């Protein structure tokens, strides 16, 4: 059996929202939110059985509107947040809410797909993030590695920090900041840094990337004109606290050191259209995943700016002899940055790519036509990194 072959799953609706189930560390599970204006929207819980290469799905109804963004709690497997469009005849409003999925689906049920499609279940609403005063919600971020009590949402030009109380039944706005400036400013995306005790976030609006300290709600750095055109997405290097990746409409992916923001550390120009998504691998930060509206997903190996520029370092205690280590280091040359693979299974724009939270060698990508593709890092590279 070809182990590296991609696994493809098709949704009936168009979709943009994809997230791994962050709190789950054993099973490979992704959540996909659909976009349909005329039918009830759904959240598909995709379980991937790595050994048998089989996908199991469960479908939850999300009746309040089409889903633009989805994220899951890092602490509670059953809790997730969505940004959705509420449409009336004259107005479209993007709202956000926190939901709980039925208990039996939290850790995945292994029913056969046929059965599950017949009895769709509904999400239980925990609370709304009240945005009437703040504008359209662009995304919701959970505190990384936190207890699932703190979330930040970006609404138009506001950064809103919420505390979830009473077992998430109530969201209290604890602090907020607004981006002032000429013109209509609007956040497009944001990420919560896992470093510095989770006190920093980064946001993107237009061509600018900004860093915020959420204790004071003040801007701490600002990368003006980070991209020639709109910045679409950001991600923090999970292992190097000052490193940040951004991508945007100029088809580029840029890597920044937030201590010196005048020039990017590196720039990738592999895509032939806007890059919508960039993601660091959670464990091996040299692996960069990008998705673009040229319908391609590209996996790059940015060794030179990763936390392991000389390949995998063997821990000291694993080594019996110090001299061996010296010799080994001499032999290891700095590895070259390269594109590992370009995945062309999609036929429409890819708006979301995500690494699995359980298996660092596995990732999913979602294109607008509702096609979810699960791929693995090529084996040769995996062994090269590990050994």
């Amino acid at each position, binding site marked *: 059996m070809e182990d590296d072959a991609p696994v493809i799953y098709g949704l009936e609706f168009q979709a943009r929202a994809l997230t791994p189930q962050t709190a789950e560390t054993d099973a490979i599970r992704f959540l996909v939110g659909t976009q*349909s204006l005329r039918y009830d929207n759904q959240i598909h819980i995709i379980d991937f059985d790595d050994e048998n290469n089989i996908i199991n799905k469960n479908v939850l109804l999300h009746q309040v509107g089409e889903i633009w963004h989805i994220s899951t709690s890092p602490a509670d497997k059953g809790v997730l947040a969505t940004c959705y469009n509420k*449409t009336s*005849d004259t107005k479209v409003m993007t709202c956000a809410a926190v939901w709980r999925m039925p208990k039996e689906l939290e850790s995945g049920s292994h029913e056969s797909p046929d059965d599950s499609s017949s009895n769709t279940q509904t999400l239980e609403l925990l609370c709304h993030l009240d945005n009437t005063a703040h504008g359209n919600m662009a995304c919701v971020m959970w505190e990384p590695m936190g207890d699932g009590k703190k979330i930040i949402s970006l609404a138009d030009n506001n950064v809103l920090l919420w505390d979830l109380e009473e077992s998430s039944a109530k969201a209290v706005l604890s602090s907020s900041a607004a981006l002032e400036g000429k013109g209509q400013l609007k956040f497009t995306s944001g990420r919560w840094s896992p470093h510095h005790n989770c006190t920093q976030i980064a946001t993107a609006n237009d061509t600018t990337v900004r860093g915020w300290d959420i204790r004071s709600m003040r801007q701490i750095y600002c990368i003006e*004109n980070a991209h*020639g055109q*709109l910045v679409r997405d950001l991600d923090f290097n999970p292992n190097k606290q000052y490193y940040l990746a951004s991508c945007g409409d*100029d088809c580029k992916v840029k890597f920044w050191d937030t201590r010196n923001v005048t020039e990017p550390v590196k720039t990738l120009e592999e895509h*032939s259209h806007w890059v919508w998504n960039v993601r660091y691998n959670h464990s091996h930060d040299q692996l960069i995943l990008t998705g673009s509206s*040229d319908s391609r997903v590209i996996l790059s190996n940015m060794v030179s700016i990763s936390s392991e520029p000389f390949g995998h370092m063997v821990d000291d205690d694993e080594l019996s002899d110090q001299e061996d280590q010296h010799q080994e280091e001499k032999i290891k040359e700095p590895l070259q940055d390269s594109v590992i693979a370009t995945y062309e299974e999609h036929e429409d724009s890819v708006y979301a790519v995500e690494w699995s939270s359980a298996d660092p060698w596995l990732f999913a990508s979602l294109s607008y036509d*509702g096609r979810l593709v699960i791929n693995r890092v090529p084996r040769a590279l995996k062994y090269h990194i590990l050994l």
Partner: protein
Amino acid sequence: RRPHGPLQRYYGPSTAEAAEAAPDPTDINGPHFDPEVFMTKVRNECPLGQLLAREAALGREIRALDSDMQTLLYENYNKFISATDTIRKMKVDFRHMEAEMDDLAANMAAISASSARVSAALQDRHRRGAQLAGVQALLRKLQALVEVPGRLRCWAGTEPARALRCHARARAVLRHYRHLPSFRAIEDESHAIMADLARRLRTRLRCEKLDPKELTECVEMLLQLEEPAEELSEEFLSQAGARLEAELAALEAELPAADPSGAATTPPPPASDILDFVDRGSSAFVGTLCQLAGSYRTLFGEDTGRLEPFAAALATRYFELLERRLALERGLGDTSLLVRALDRFHRRLRALLELLPAGADAAAAVVARAARERVDRYLRALQTFFLGCLGDVRQALAAPRPPGKEGPGLPDLLATLAASVLGQLKAVLAYVQLFTARDVAFASLPYFKGEFCVTAVREGLVVAFVRWLCRTARGFADGPAERGAPAAPPALLLLLARLCLDYENSTISYILTLTDEQFPPLDSGPAVTPGPALCAEARAAAQRLLDHYVQVQGAAVAQMLRKSVETRDWLGTVEPRNVRAVMKRVVEDITAIDVQVGQLFEEGVRRAQSSDSSRRAFSVYSSSRAPGRYAPSYTPSAPMDTHLLSNIQKLFSERIDIFSPVEFNKVSVLTGIIKISLKTLLECVRLRTLGRFGLQQVQVDGHYLQLYLWRFASDERVVQGLLDEVAASAAHRCLDPVPMEHSVVELICERG
């Protein structure tokens, strides 16, 4: 065998053939002719008529031969008779001669006897005469010796050279006869005089400023006075050194004082030009040095152990001075003047170099450095010139046009730019060629024959300039677009792309051929950058520029589209009555771009079009097709069908790369820009939620774009495909998807 005939005739018949030919008895002229055989053969082979003819011919021949024989006989008979007469006459004459010879012998004997007698009689007197002459000579010599001191004393003051000559003549004799008291006295006296003279000469040598000729004379005389050569040579050199130092100092005085604080203060322009300087340097310093070195050699022989370091040190200082002077020649000045100066320097130095071979390398290095420096300066001047031209072009592009009056078109600007740059390059080459002109002496140095042509001119000037040009051009695409620095105007990008492309196509090879003609490289010379490598660089630069142009223009149009989609309220909009202004603007902009690109690039090929691609036929085509595309997406019961349909459609259409490299023609460039624009429209529409009229507006806009954009693209299917996707996405994003009647759409678009 026939064709070999001439060859065989030349080399004589082969032996085989000779053997075969020899015994042919029927050859009437051959040596083996046998009449019997011949007759038999003739009788057997020939018909009667031929026999008769042959007989007549033979008769004629025989008669002719007979008459020839008789003529010969007569002629020879006459000659024989005259010869006999001559011999008889000779016999008579000889008898006469014998008698006269005997008489002659007797007379000669008598003459010799009388001569012997006369000489015996005269011998004695002759001996005495000779003796007397000897005594006379001796006496005269003695007289001269006695007179020596007096003469010496007389000449020593005024004509030391004559005194010396006199003394030299007398010295040997005096030394020989010094045991005779009288001679001894003379010798002593003359010695004293000469010592005095020597002393005087030495003082003169030491303290006076002598010109080289006097110096040489003086030292020469001292040498003749048998003063120690070692000491003299030292004195000579120190004296010469002082003189040369003075000349160097005079030269140095012309240079501005070496200012250690650096180039902060620019020295005032030197008073005299370089040619003048070199002229003076060579005539004064080099001339004197040559003269002195020559004298030294004649005076102290070929042992130049002392001279060489001395001369080398001075020459080095001279070179230093010259280099300092050359360094003053900043700016471009007059190259021919510089070349002439260097030439003179080199020529004058050649005489010196014969005496001082070690200096040759240093001198050649000075010349080579100066030449190299000049070439480098030309490169910089070329670069400045090019930047200046670019500045002019930018200005021309940016200059506000008075309404109704067109500014200079892009082709004109390009032609001006290319021509002036090429002209400047040619002019520079012509200047540099002065260095290798045939009448310039140093052009025959191996450096100028080989390395200068290749390393300095071809690589250092021409190749470096082309490379720099490509790099600079690329810089417009690579650098400023980042980080919001002032970007180059798109027209300039386009212009530079065309310029680089022209370079790749023809200019580079032309320039290189020109250079190789004017500066022929040696076969064994160092490796040169091949033309194709340069061409590739130029092409890469052109490609980069053109891609950048497409991106910049595409981004401009895309930005317009994005803003127009993002800022509009698509839900609450009213029924469309017009094409939105922004779409007209897009079409206008793209038409303007089309004109702009068309000025510089060829049309390019469109994909083969069906015959119905004319405008009217096209709208029919799209209308016949549109219902098929739209209909299923509006049937609410089948959400899957749309996917199926669009997926199937995608299966058969090629993947379109949006930001992909373009080809060097108008159609490709325009296609690139249109692709970027339409893809942006697609992505933006997908982010919005549309009402019924919103959808209809998109429909109208899409149709309008289709009407006007297809003719710019290389493949109208690309435009069609992207616009279809826009329409399909808009339908998906619509709450109430009721499309507009196609005829109405057409009507609105027709109306403009």
